[in-house]
């Protein structure tokens, strides 16, 4: 076990540094990562996920504001900031660069084992990000949504 603050620094140095080959130095190969975007079951999948995000927002950076640690359990609170300068791939197709900067608050809660992340769940609001990108679909009645499908 290591200090959760040191763990946070290592993890985000690898992710923000786009060190795709180093993911397993900060997380276990079979890491479980759950977020509103995706549920991932390996370090390789996580690297692929981050790589696709980095295409859309190559300058993306995490800033950790608070770290909580209780034994092997940790919580990192912070914000992610990036500028949408590349194509953003979504299930509805590609969104061309908007040039907008996004600041997304997050809280990541998880468990470490032998100094590497073994499981983490990330809480954030996708609607907040979409709003900042000017891509917000307004909530609408279910029947209208069904008709549009």
């Amino acid at each position, binding site marked *: 076990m290591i200090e959760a603050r040191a763990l946070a620094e290592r993890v985000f140095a690898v992710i923000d540094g786009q060190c795709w080959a180093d993911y397993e130095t900060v997380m276990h190969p079979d890491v479980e990562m759950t977020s509103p975007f995706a549920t991932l079951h390996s370090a390789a999948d996580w690297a692929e996920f981050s790589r696709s995000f980095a295409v859309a927002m190559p300058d993306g950076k995490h800033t950790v504001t608070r770290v*909580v640690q*209780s034994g092997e359990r*940790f*919580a990192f609170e912070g914000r992610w900031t990036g500028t949408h300068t590349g194509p*953003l791939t979504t299930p509805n197709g590609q969104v061309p660069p908007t040039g907008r900067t996004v600041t997304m608050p*997050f809280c990541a809660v998880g468990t470490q084992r032998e100094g590497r992340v073994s499981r983490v769940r990330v809480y954030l609001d996708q609607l*907040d990000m979409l709003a900042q990108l000017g891509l917000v679909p307004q*909530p609408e009645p279910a029947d209208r*949504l069904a008709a549009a499908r």
Partner: protein
Amino acid sequence: MSLQQLVDRHYREVNTNDYSDADDIFSADVVTKPPGSGPLTGIEPFVAYGEGFHRAFPDGRIHGDRYVESGDIVVVEGRFTGTNTGPLDTPAGQIPATGRPMVLPFADLFRVADGKIAEHRIYFDTVGMLAQLGLMQESTAV
């Protein structure tokens, strides 16, 4: 009282929609930051936020599942479960009841000062919430 006990008292308030002991649990100038809204200062706007959820989900229950605590901060992973049988307030206006059930995972961060909650940050995914209510497609970035 441990931080977790304080938080559990607050969750009982939510589950009973009875905030009469809020003055014992929260500082008068508590800052609440929910998703999709600026910070709310004071107990009254915070209670109004909770009551808004109760109107939309009268059978709503908040469950604290896992707690991480150190120093003056406790982070809770939990779920809000309920059926949307009342009007839901959104930034785009009020949406009539959808009748749908919802299980909303969330993280709460509480900072405690002088035995009371002084700061409360709420993290959940509004897209996931609206998708379960059939109000938005669950398909966004990446």
